[in-house]
Each structure stands twice: as C-alpha cells, then as structure tokens.
C-alpha cells in the first residue's frame, strides 16, 4: 500500500482538481432539526466550502447515486403498431464520492457481491460503480454506530484513496493509480515514522469512542432457533411497516418494477423502484395471496436476510452497523435491541 501525507489546505486544491472534470458528491448540511442540530445529506457539490468534512452521519446513505430510489430501466417509443426500446444506464460522466465513511464503503463492497460479482450482474449498477471514484474519510463514531460489531468500522478495499485526519495534516492511503495520479496535482510527502505513530494513535483513540455494540456470535444459528419466538411479535406490534428502515439502509437493494404508458400513448417506461420487505404488499403475489401479511413476520424476514441469509451466501452480514435504521425509525426499533432481545429470549 502507498501512503502519503499532505497539509490540510492541499485538500481544497485536490477538490478543485476533482470538480474540474467530474461530478462530485459530498456531505452537506441539508437543514437543522428541532434541536438545531445539523441534518446531513449527500449532494452534488461544486464549492469546497459546502462540504462538511466533519459530518457525523447522513440521514440517507449515498445509495441513490448508484441505486436510485427510482430509475428508468427502459423507455419505449410507440409508433403505429410498432415500438422501439431504448436503454440507458443513466450515467453520463464519472462520479466522485468525496468523504465516504468506512460503513458506507463497506456497504458498497457488500452490494458489489450481489449486483456486480453475481451470476447476473445488474448493468445499471455496474455502469455507475465502474465509473466511480471514492475518497474515503474516517469518521467520529456516533452513539448509534455499531459498525465495530459488524467488522465494518474500517475499510480495507472498495475505495481509491482514504483520508485520515491527523490533526494538523492528512494521512492518505492510496489504492488505485487513478488516486495516485490525482494526488500528483497537489503537494504530498512520504510519511515519516512519527506520522505512522500519530496515525496509530488516532486510530486507537477512535476505536475507544465506539459505544454501541451487538453480539453477533452464532447469530445465524440463534436466529434459526428463535424463529418462532414471541419476541418478534413484540417488535411487530411496534413496527409501522413504513419502509423507512430500508429506505435509509445503505445495503437494502430490493425493488419492484413498474410499467407505465405515457398519457399521449406515444411512449412507455419501465421503472425500477426500491421497495421494502416491511411493506404490506412486499410478499403479495398475483391473485392476492400475501405470504407475510403480519408486520412481525415481515420485520423478522428483514433481519433474516441481513443477518442470516446473506451470511450463509457470502460469509458476512448485510448490515454495516451504520445505525441509520434505528435513528430514523419513529417507533425506535434498533438493530442492537432487536438482536439482543432475540438472544435473551433464547437464554430463557
């Protein structure tokens, strides 16, 4: 791995290099909540000063830039009795994600396993993913973050360069030659022994700041054993079945496809819309039968996909522990609490 170190003011210059020829997305302040705390969101940025490098966590993940909530898969032109189909992967230039935290980088790595490296890759995702440049950045752990329990508090791959704030200067890991070439535009230095020591101190300090945790030991088995547990009903009674958890999840990728005809009958569209397994019609099939009519069974299967099914398939959980679902859930359903309650029920 190649390491470099650079002065803080150089980052702005690097941003200028990025933004000159690319679409850049970073965390910005989208508003203030009732307690006057900033609410962050990923957004297109052209001005370096708009970017909040010290953002805590965004409400929504960066998902919409590679898995949009709504995406046109195909458009059709209808002329007389004939039609022609047009397909666009909906990307016109490379995208730079500036300042992605480790959880969100790991989320992309997990999505890659399903949408990029599977038997049937999704071209709409692949086109965007292949034209993506990621600048990772270390975060300050929030009270709701349990990424350390999920092994996603650091990112080992899936980014081009990763920046850690050493106080006065930035320490950067370089994973791709694109990143290396970008960095030639600014002044960087070879890190010295003392920089390495400082880096390790920063990492050590961050490690201690994590408070939330989940015990995932043998979780796949425990979930199987507790499949009939009444604890699921407790959470189902609270669940609003509103789909917010899936919408704010950086790894939820389930979707539905809607076909619509233009009102002038000259065109039609096939649109992919991200769905949620907590919604009442998720498991409804033709003829009206619903395989999961109860809230608790839908909630349970969401946990099963994240913490059991995906683990069986890919040897890792589909949850990155970002804590967004719990933070956004109006009913206050959090992953650590649900898993803890299932685990506790098994002990009784």
């Amino acid at each position, binding site marked *: 791995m190649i390491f470099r170190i650079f002065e803080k003011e150089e980052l702005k210059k690097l941003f200028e290099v990025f933004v000159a020829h690319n679409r850049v997305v970073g965390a910005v302040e989208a508003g203030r909540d009732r307690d006057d705390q900033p609410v962050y969101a990923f957004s297109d940025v052209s001005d370096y000063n708009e970017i909040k490098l010290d953002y805590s966590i965004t409400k929504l993940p960066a998902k919409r830039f590679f898995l949009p909530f709504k995406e046109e898969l195909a458009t059709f032109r209808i002329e007389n009795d004939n039609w022609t189909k047009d397909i666009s992967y909906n990307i016109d230039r490379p995208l730079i994600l500036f300042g992605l935290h480790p959880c969100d980088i790991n989320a992309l790595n997990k999505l890659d396993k399903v949408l990029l490296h599977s038997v049937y890759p999704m071209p709409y995702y692949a086109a965007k993913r292949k034209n993506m440049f990621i600048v990772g950045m270390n975060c300050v752990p929030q009270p709701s973050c349990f990424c350390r329990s999920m092994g996603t508090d650091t990112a080992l791959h899936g980014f081009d360069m990763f920046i850690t704030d050493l106080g006065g200067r930035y320490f950067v890991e370089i994973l791709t030659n694109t990143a290396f070439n970008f960095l030639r535009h600014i002044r960087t230095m070879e890190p010295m022994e003392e920089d390495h020591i400082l880096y390790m101190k920063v990492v050590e300090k961050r490690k201690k700041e994590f408070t939330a945790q989940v015990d995932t030991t043998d979780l796949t088995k425990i979930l199987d054993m507790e499949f009939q547990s009444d604890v699921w009903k407790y959470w189902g009674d609270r669940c609003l079945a509103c*789909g917010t958890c899936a919408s704010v999840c950086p790894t939820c990728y389930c979707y539905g496809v809607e076909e619509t005809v233009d009102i002038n009958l000259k065109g039609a569209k096939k649109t992919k819309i991200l769905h949620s397994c907590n919604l009442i019609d998720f498991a409804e099939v033709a003829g009206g039968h619903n395989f999961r009519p109860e809230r608790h069974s839908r909630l349970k299967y969401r946990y099963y996909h994240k913490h059991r099914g995906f683990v069986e398939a890919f040897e890792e959980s589909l949850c990155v522990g970002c804590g967004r679902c719990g933070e956004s859930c*109006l009913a206050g359903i959090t992953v650590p609490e649900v898993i803890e309650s299932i685990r506790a029920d098994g002990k009784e």
Partner: protein
Amino acid sequence: MDEREPGARTYLGVPLYRPKVAFFEFTSCEGCQLQVLNKEDTLLDFLSLVEVVNFREAMTEQSDDYEIAFVEGSITRDDDVKRLKKIRKNAKVLVALGSCACFGGVNQLKNRFKDLNFVKTEVYGRHPIDSGPVRTLEEIVKVDLKIYGCPVKKEEVEKIVLHIAIGKSIVFPKYPVCMECKRNENICLFELGEPCLGPVTRAGCDSWCPDNRAGCWGCRGPADDPNLDQMKKIMLEKGFSEETLLDRLECFGGFSSLMKKGNVNEKDL
C-alpha cells in the same frame, strides 16, 4: 372494443376503448374536478382518451348517456340521494373522486357535533338550509372505484383513466406515505418538530405535503393495516397532544371507520 368510432385510435394495433364519462359534484369544493382540468400540458391528451359528456366546471352540454361517472363530494341532502341514485343507474362504473366522496372529507367533521342544529345556526344563522349529516357515496350506492386525496392527484386520475382505456389493471399503493417521503429525500417532519400522519396514511400522493414541509393530515385515509397504536405513542413521545392526533385523524374522515370498528377505541386515542 369501441364501436362508436370506426377508425378510432389504436394502441399497439389494438383499438382503444374511449369511454363516455361524466363528472358530478355533491357537497365539496369541486377542487378535485379542478385538479383534473388544471394540468394543461396533458389536458388534451387526457381528454382524447375519454369522451366527456357532462362536466359542469368545464362545459355547458349535458347528457345522461355515459359509462363512467366520476362523482365528487359527500351526500348531505335528500335530493342528493335521489340524484346520486340516478347517476348510479346511468353509469356502468361509478368512481368516487376525492376524499369527500370516499370518506366524507372535511364536511364530515360536522357529524362529530351532537347537535347538528347548533352547527347549522353557527354557519348559516337563521337562514333555513336543507343540510343533514354527511354521508359517503358508499353509504347510499355501490362504488366501483375510489380515488383518494384532498384534492386528488391529477397524475393518479390520468393513470386510472389511461389504464381503463388500454385495459391495464388499476393498483393503488397499500403502504404508507413515509416510503414516498424518504424516496423524495425529505427530512422527517418529526425531526423538524412537526406532527405528521405519514406513517399511517396511504401513499400515492408522492408525499405532496411533506415535500413542502407540511406534515400529513391523512387525506388519503389509512394505509393497509396501519399501526395507529404506535402512531399515538409516537405523537405523545414527540410532545404532541392526543387532541393534535385526533384533529388530524378526524379531519378527512378516512380513519373514522377504523375508530368505529373498534380497531382503535376513539376514547383510547
């Protein structure tokens, strides 16, 4: 399908069914009909899909020869009942257009007063007025299709009419507004300190109000299997009173059937 017009429009080689439609209104603001007329860039395309034979807000001509009746408004008078029954008899398909027709709408708030005469005197003074308790269309006649909303969303009406014309099934979302609200990347209204019925209200409006930073009032009625108990807990937890919740749940009448049925006890709420 359409034998009235030889050489009529086709879609992918299949002749289009161009139904004769009529629009009617009862107790309402007629805003839903206005919605239908008000998106001018698609109005001509919309009108070419149907043959409008009755539309007081848009044309002078009138006819009783129609297949689909779009009926806006709630029923408050005896002559309303007669007129609605006649419309039902004439129409093959009767569509309740908007929340007044579906649930009674804002009008049904007066049903909540024990003494209707008090309401009448408050509003009309001593002027004699024939206005009884508010009823939904369904309380009088069979309703084939309901289009929710106060007002209805033009795009949704267009889609329904289009689907009738090309023979595609009509599907409404069963899930709540939150899903659309998140999709539209709004900051949760509760986070901004506003109450919102988004978590229990049927989607399909594309989170119209929350997009404009106004909390949902439930005009489209409940989503399928809404969690009203939890909704109440959330409202109280976020510092809003039961009255605030009741005000919203009762406003358009969509939730009243749930309360009456005892799924949620009105007193509990």
